[in-house]
C-alpha cells in the first residue's frame, strides 16, 4: 500500500462494498419483495422472518447502513469530480460511465427516501408489512418514483459489477470485458424484472 495516502485503499473498499454486501443485499431484498407476487401473507411472513433474524440491529448497521453511507457519499464525491464529455466522445463505455454516476445519485436519493418511508416509520411505531408499501405505491407518483429508483439501483449494481471485475483484476483482456458487458446486461434485465414485478404486486 502506498505510504503517503489511503486513496487507493478507499477506492478498493468502495468497489468491494458495492458488491459485498450491498449488491448481495439488493438481490436478497428484491427476492423477499418478490414474495408479494404470491400473496400478501407470503410477503408478511418473509418480512417478519427478515425482521426477526438474530442480531438484526447489528446486521442492519454493519451490513447495510454503514456500507451504504460510505459507498454513497464517496460515490457522490467521485461523480462530481468527473468532467462528462459524452457529447464529444459518445462511445458505449463513456455513456455507461455517465449513467453509472447518474444512476448512483438517483439510487442514493431513492434509498434515502425509501428508508425514511419504511425504516424510519418503524422507529415511530409503524409495522413493516404489505399495507405499508401498499399505501405508498397506491399513489401513482410514488409508484413511478419507485420504479425509476429500482431501475436506477439495479443498473448501478449491474454495471458496477462490470467495473468491479476490472478493478479487482478478473477481466483484463478486451474479450473478457466484452463478455462481462453481456453478462451485466443480462443481470440488469433479469434483476430489474424481478424488482418491478415485485413492486407492482403491492398496488
Amino acid at each position: 500500500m502506498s505510504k503517503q495516502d489511503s486513496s487507493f485503499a478507499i477506492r478498493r473498499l468502495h468497489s468491494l462494498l458495492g458488491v459485498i454486501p450491498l449488491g448481495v443485499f439488493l438481490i436478497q431484498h428484491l427476492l423477499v419483495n418478490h414474495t408479494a407476487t404470491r400473496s400478501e401473507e407470503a410477503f408478511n411472513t418473509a418480512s417478519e422472518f427478515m425482521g426477526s433474524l438474530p442480531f438484526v440491529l447489528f446486521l442492519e448497521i454493519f451490513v447495510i447502513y454503514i456500507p451504504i453511507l460510505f459507498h454513497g457519499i464517496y460515490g457522490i464525491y467521485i461523480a462530481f469530480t468527473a468532467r462528462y464529455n459524452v457529447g464529444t466522445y459518445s462511445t458505449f463505455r463513456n455513456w455507461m460511465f455517465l449513467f453509472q454516476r447518474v444512476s448512483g445519485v438517483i439510487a442514493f436519493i431513492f434509498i434515502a427516501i425509501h428508508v425514511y418511508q419504511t425504516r424510519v416509520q418503524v422507529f415511530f411505531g409503524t409495522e413493516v408489512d404489505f399495507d405499508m408499501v401498499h399505501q405508498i405505491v397506491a399513489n401513482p407518483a410514488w409508484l413511478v418514483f419507485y420504479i425509476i429508483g429500482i431501475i436506477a439501483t439495479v443498473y448501478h449494481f449491474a454495471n458496477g459489477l462490470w467495473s468491479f471485475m476490472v478493478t479487482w483484476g478478473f477481466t483484463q483482456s478486451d474479450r473478457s470485458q466484452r463478455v462481462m458487458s453481456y453478462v451485466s446486461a443480462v443481470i440488469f434485465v433479469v434483476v430489474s424484472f424481478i424488482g418491478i414485478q415485485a413492486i407492482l404486486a403491492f398496488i
Partner: protein
Amino acid sequence: MIKFSIKRQEHTDAKSYWEEFEVPYRENMNVISALMEIQRNPVNTKGEKTTPVTWDMNCLEEVCGACSMVINGSARQSCTALVDQLEQPVKLEPMSTFPIVKDLQVDRTFMFDSLKRVKAWVPIDGTYDLGPGPRMPEKKRQTAYELSKCMTCGVCLEVCPNVNDSSDFMGAAPISQVRLFNLHPTGSMNKNERLDALMGAGGVAECGMAQNCVKACPKGIPLTTSIAAMQRETSFHMFKSFFGSDHEVE
C-alpha cells in the same frame, strides 16, 4: 481556399476567442502546413492583420506527440491531419485538459511529472558493469513493443472525463508505461516501486473506465488492457504489502 476556425488565447490566463482564416489550397496539405501558411501571412478572413497562430511541433511524422490539438472535435496530431480528409471550416482548438501556453500550444508537464512519479525507466546506473540482463521472451517483447509506441502526446488525457482540474488522476499513458517497464526483465526488478507510485493519489484506482483513451489513442495502444492489468497487479500488491507474501519472492 481552405477555411480554418482557430480558438486563440494570448496567454494562460487570457480569455479565448475564435478567429477565422483562409489558406490557399496545396496538394497533400496537412494542418501544420496550413498553420505555417498563416504564420507567413497572418491575415484573418476579414482582411485584418493579426498575430501569427502559435502551435507546437517537432517530428512531423506522428512519433513525438508534440503537435496534438483538437481538430474538428477530436484530439489528434496535426501533422497527420490531412486537409483533404477534413470537413471545412477546419476547427482547431488546444487540448484544454492542459494549461494553455498560447493559442494551440499546451504545457504537458503534468504528464512528464507523472512519468517521473511512477519511475517509468529501467535503472541500471551504478559503479560497476552489471553485465547483460535476462533475455526477454518473444511474446513479451511483442506486447512491450506496442506499449513502447506511447509518445506522451496527451490525447488519452484530453479525452478522459476523469482527468480535470478537480481530480488528480494521471490518465492512461503513465499507467500503461508502468506496465511496459514492469514487463521488462530488468525493469521488473523495481516493479514494486512503480506499483507503489501507481497506488498514490491520482493513481490507477481513479480510473473511471469510460474507455475513451483506447479509442482515441493515435498509436492504437491497448490502454484499457494496460489499466486493467495494473488494476490486477495493484490489487495483488495491496494484499502482499499488507499481509506479506512468500509466494513469489520478487
